[in-house]
C-alpha cells in the first residue's frame, strides 16, 4: 500500500505486499510477546496472591512461610536501611563474587575434563570411576573439609561452588563430545586437521549445545554452593543473611534473601543466553 521507493528488495518481490506481510508478522510477534508477559504475570499473581491469601487466612502459618507483602517490606527495608551486616548490595556482591569465581572455575574445569576424557577412551576408562565416586560425596561434608583445608575466606566458598558446578558440566561436556558425528570428525581429519584441531573445530562446536545446557543449570548450583559455604562460617553474604534471619524466626528475611538470589540468578542467565545466541547463531531458528 505504501510506495516508499527506498524499500526496494535486492531481488524484488513486490514491495507493497511484502511490507504488508511484514507488518502483519511483526504485529503477530508483538501480540505473542504481550501474551507471554501477561501469562507470566498471571502466574506470578496467582502464586503470590494465593500465598498472601492463605497466609492471611491462616491456612499456612506465616510464622514459617511469611507472606509476599511482608517479604516485600523486608526487601525494601534492607535496600533502604541496609542489613545488619552492611548494605544489601555488598552482601549481593560478596555472594556474587564467590559464585562467579566458582562458576567459572568449575565450568572451565568441567569442560576441560569432559573434553579430555570424552576424547580419550583410556583416560575415561580409568578416571570416570573416580569422578563418579567424587560426585557421590555430599557437598556439605565437602564444605567442612574445604574450610579446614582452605580456611574460612573466600576460597572455601568458591571451592564449594566449584564442586557443585563441576560434575554437571563435566557430565554434559563428556557426553556432548561422545555425540560428535563420526563422519564429521573423519571429514576434518581427512581435510588435514590435527587431533587438537579436530577437538577445537569439530568436537567442541558440536558439544556446545550440551555444554551450554549444563551451564544454564549450573549457575544456580554455583549460587547454592556459595550460600552453603557461607552457612559454614562467614561475616557477609546472602547465606549469612539467611541464617541470621532463620535464627531470628524472621521467615520474611529468609524468603527475601532467596528472592535476591533469584534476581541474581536471572540476571546471570540473561547474560548466558546472550552469549549462547552469539555462539549458536549458525543453527536453524527453532520453530
Amino acid at each position, binding site marked *: 500500500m505504501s510506495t516508499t521507493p527506498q524499500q526496494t528488495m535486492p531481488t524484488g518481490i513486490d514491495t507493497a505486499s511484502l511490507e504488508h506481510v511484514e507488518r502483519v508478522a511483526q504485529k503477530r510477534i508483538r501480540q505473542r510477546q504481550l501474551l507471554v508477559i501477561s501469562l507470566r504475570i498471571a502466574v506470578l499473581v496467582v502464586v503470590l496472591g494465593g500465598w498472601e491469601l492463605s497466609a492471611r487466612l491462616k491456612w499456612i502459618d506465616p510464622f514459617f512461610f511469611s507472606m509476599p507483602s511482608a517479604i516485600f517490606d523486608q526487601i525494601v527495608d534492607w535496600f533502604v536501611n541496609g542489613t545488619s551486616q552492611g548494605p544489601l548490595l555488598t552482601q549481593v556482591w560478596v555472594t556474587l563474587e564467590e559464585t562467579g569465581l566458582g562458576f567459572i572455575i568449575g565450568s572451565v574445569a568441567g569442560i576441560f575434563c569432559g573434553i579430555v576424557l570424552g576424547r580419550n577412551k583410556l583416560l575415561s576408562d580409568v578416571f570416570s570411576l573416580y569422578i563418579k565416586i567424587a560426585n557421590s560425596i555430599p557437598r556439605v561434608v565437602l564444605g567442612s573439609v574445604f574450610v579446614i583445608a582452605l580456611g574460612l575466606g573466600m576460597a572455601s566458598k568458591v571451592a564449594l561452588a566449584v564442586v557443585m558446578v563441576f560434575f554437571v558440566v563435566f557430565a554434559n561436556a563428556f557426553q556432548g563430545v561422545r555425540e560428535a558425528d563420526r563422519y564429521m570428525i573423519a571429514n576434518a581429519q581427512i581435510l588435514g586437521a590435527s587431533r587438537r584441531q579436530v577437538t577445537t573445530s569439530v568436537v567442541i562446536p558440536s558439544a556446545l549445545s550440551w555444554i551450554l545446557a549444563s551451564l544454564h543449570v549450573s549457575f544456580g548450583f554455583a549460587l547454592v554452593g556459595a550460600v552453603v559455604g557461607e552457612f559454614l562460617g562467614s561475616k557477609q553474604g546472602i547465606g549469612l543473611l539467611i541464617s541470621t534471619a532463620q535464627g531470628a*524466626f524472621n521467615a520474611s528475611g529468609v524468603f527475601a534473601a532467596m528472592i535476591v538470589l533469584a534476581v541474581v540468578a536471572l540476571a546471570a542467565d540473561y547474560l548466558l543466553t546472550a552469549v549462547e545466541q552469539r555462539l549458536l547463531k549458525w543453527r536453524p531458528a527453532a520453530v
Partner: protein
Amino acid sequence: EKITIMVGGAAKIIYLPARLTEQLGYFKDEGLDVEILSQPAGVDAENELLAGAVQGVVGFYDHTIDLQSKGKEVEALVIFGQVPGEVEMVSTKAADTFKSMADAKGKTLGVTGLGSSTSFLTQYLAQRAGVPSTQYTLLPVGADNSFIAAIKQNRIDAGMTTEPTVSQLLKTGDAKVLIDMRTLEGTRAALGGTYPASSFYVQRAWAESHKSDAAKLSHAFAKTLNFIATHSAEDIAAKMPKDYYGSNKDLYIGALKASLPMFTKDGKMPADGPETVLRVLSAFNPSVKGKHIDLAKTYTNDFVAAPVKTAAK
C-alpha cells in the same frame, strides 16, 4: 594482627556477648582487630579452631572436655553462661501426662542432634529422674523453626531448646516449660550444680603464645558481661543489629529478659561448673566415658583475672 572468632550462630541469645562486645566497641578499646564469623551449623567450629582457620570459638564449654579426650588441648578463657540456657519444653498437648522428667517413659524427646550437648543433657535429666535411655526415644529435630514445627506437628512430646525459641513457643502457647535451665536455681535443681555452657575458648598453645591478645579479649568480654549485668534487656537489645530480632523486637526483649540470669557477671568459671559438665558427659558421651580428664586444663580464669596491662580508657 587480625583475630577471627567463630560463633556457633551469632544471632543466638546464648552467644549474645560475642556480637555485643563488637557493637559496644570493646575490642577496639583494647586495641584489637577482631572479626566475628557466624556458623549456624556449629559442629565444625572446633575443627576450624584446631585447623587454625580461626583463633577462638564461642560455643559450649563441654567441647573442651570432649576435645581433651581426643588429645586436643582447648581451654575456655571466658565463661559467658554459668548455666546452659537450655529449656526442656513440653508440648501443651502432652503436658497433662508429662509433668516431670520421670514421665519421660515411652515418650519422644527432641534434641538438636544426636551426640549434641542437648542430647547429653536430656539423657542426664532422664537418668536423674530414673528413666533409663532405653525407655524413651531421642529424635534429632534441629533448632529454631524445625524445632517449633516438630512440637506443632506432634512429632515430639518434649524437647530441649534455647531462647528465643522458648519465648516463641510460650507466646503461641504450643509448649510449656518443663525444666528451666536459664536460671541458676533451675539448673542446680535439674543438674545438681552450675553447668557452664556458652563460653569463649581457644587452643591452649595459642593462649600461651598470645598472652596479651588473650588477656585483651578476655577483658573485652568481661566488660561486656558487666554491661549486661548492669543494663536492662531493652538497653541491650537496642545495641544489637536489627536483623537479630527481625520484625519482632518484643519477642526478642522478652527472650533476653528471661535469659539475662544465665550470664556470669565477670566471665569467670563457677567453682562447681566443670565437675557438673564432666559428670553429664561421662554418663553419656562414649568418647569421654571412662577417660581421665584433667579439668584444670579445660579452662582458665587467669586472663579475665589478670591485671590490665594497657591502661583502660
